[in-house]
């Protein structure tokens, strides 16, 4: 009886989750397998790690820009805070890696809150400028902070591997998807749609903006800590304005308000820059052309506000069979 008494749509939801779960595990096993066989070399692995980090950055910026409608362009700033404080945790204090990731995320979230409280009252362009300024200030701070090497940079042991990045990227997607598909996430979306109407519906708009901003910052911080522990050396210029723009491009390309869009765009863009690594100039041109093309032909981004959905007709059929079996 058990399963049969569950309503059809709950059953569909469980099956969908199972299919996604299986997909995530199989993809991981496939990549690990190809790596073991030597088909995926070190260079490709580096890019897979980078793609995962960009997935985390893109999806978390989408929470701020796409779902809550706040135009932030300081994501590299939060990433650098996570990178430096994560690295301080392992290098200076000898803390375990997992704790360093947590620390990177927490300090970035705190910074997000501190920046967010005063600036989230600003609208549109002003918020963008404020976050841009924040990113630059953070960069200058690290540039002059001798404790972490200043302009020379800060060497960090490699503790990140593909598995860490993969698992955390998946967790990021799941956690942010959960949020936007909850009443609290709907409050963020309401803020995006019409802030005045949202507050008249009983939503504390400042609170939800600060939550989105801090959570977005936290994941950017974790991405930064993963980055720091993979590429051996971090320096302030690794987290400049261009990095923020890259993340922004991912969000716009994938679609403001589409998590699957950000995931796809992060992978596409990392792949593209990997293929074009030897031609840095054409790379910039192709980047720009891609973006212009998107703006013209798909102004909402690749996915608009939609998400990838599994075809559920297949599941429905199975549900019917079950009912037949029960009669």
């Amino acid at each position, binding site marked *: 009886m058990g399963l049969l008494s569950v309503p059809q749509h709950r059953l569909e939801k469980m099956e969908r989750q199972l299919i996604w779960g299986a997909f995530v595990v199989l993809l991981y096993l496939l990549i690990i397998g190809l790596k073991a066989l030597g088909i995926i070399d070190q260079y490709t692995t580096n890019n897979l790690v980078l793609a995962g980090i960009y997935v985390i950055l893109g999806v978390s910026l989408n929470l701020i820009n796409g779902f809550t409608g706040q135009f932030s362009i300081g994501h590299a700033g939060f990433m650098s805070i996570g990178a430096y404080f994560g690295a301080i945790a392992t290098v200076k204090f000898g803390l375990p890696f997992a704790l360093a990731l947590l620390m990177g995320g927490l300090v970035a979230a705190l910074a997000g809150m501190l920046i967010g409280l005063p600036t989230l009252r600003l609208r549109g362009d002003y918020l963008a400028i404020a976050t841009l300024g924040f990113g630059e200030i953070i960069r200058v701070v690290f540039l002059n902070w001798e404790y972490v090497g200043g302009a020379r940079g800060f060497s960090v042991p490699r503790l990140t591997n593909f598995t860490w990045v993969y698992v955390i990227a998946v967790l990021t997607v799941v956690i942010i998807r959960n949020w936007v598909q*909850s009443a609290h996430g709907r409050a963020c979306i309401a803020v995006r749609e019409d802030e005045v109407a949202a507050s008249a*519906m009983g939503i504390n708009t400042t609170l939800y903006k600060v939550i989105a901003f801090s959570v977005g910052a936290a994941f950017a911080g974790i991405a930064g800590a993963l980055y720091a522990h993979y590429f051996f050396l971090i320096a302030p210029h690794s987290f400049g304005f261009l990095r923020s723009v890259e993340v922004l491009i991912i969000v716009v390309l994938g679609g403001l308000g589409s998590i699957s869009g950000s995931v796809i765009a992060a992978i596409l863009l990392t792949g593209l820059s990997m293929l074009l690594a030897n031609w840095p100039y054409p790379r910039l041109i192709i980047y720009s052309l891609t973006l212009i093309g998107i703006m013209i032909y798909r102004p909402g981004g690749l996915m608009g506000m939609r998400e990838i959905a599994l075809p559920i007709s297949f599941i429905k059929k199975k549900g019917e069979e079950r009912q037949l079996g029960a009669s």
Partner: protein
Amino acid sequence: MALLETKGLSMTFGGLRAVAGFDYILEEGELAGLIGPNGAGKTTVFNMISGLLAPTSGHIYYAGEEITRLPAHEVTKRGMARTFQNIRLFSQLTALENVMIAFHRHVKYGYARAFLHLNIGREEEEIRESAYRLLEEVGLAERAHQIAHNLPYGEQRRLEIARALATRPKLLLLDEPAAGMNIQETARLKTFIQEIHDRYNLTILVIEHDMSLVMGVCRRITVLDYGMKIAEGTPDEIRSNPRVIEAYLGEETADVAN
């Protein structure tokens, strides 16, 4: 007891006195009207009462508590809801989502459970069902999954009222609900306002230029002109009040006289 009371409520924009010393009392259960020529300050009064604008001076009391300068979401939490003169729906979302969002203040689960989707299924289904039921009650059930922006104008107004009702208010403020409606739609709206007033035990204050609606539905009417209260009384008293006729002269004299 008065559900809503304002004392000396005033709002100045730069040099412009939009509302000047507005004293007002609304008893629980009333269905009252607020009228006045364009620019009289009616919407500004609503904005101050609902917490969207902080008054320059004066006081606002709701259910015996002073709510002057409380932010809008705090006012809504205390049981007041409103609609807007120029419709402010969440226009890219469906009708159902619009109403679901307005259940916000009744959501019991916290942030952590939202991030982890920890046992929120039951409550989410309840929200969805309540929202759907509310759409049924206002006659918009078949529109549930349509994007708000694509609904006909009259239905957008109705959806905005449904969304306000979802916050489960005691006091409902309607700012020109009949604006842009044709005669049939306005007639339907009139019965609709009466219906929700009775069905949900609401106190309603409505701003409206359409005199057939105000005179037909409100038992007490207050008239604003240049930010000041110039008259108050039953529809009959207002219709024959010389100051009111003067205020509307050249604009809507004919309407008032009807």
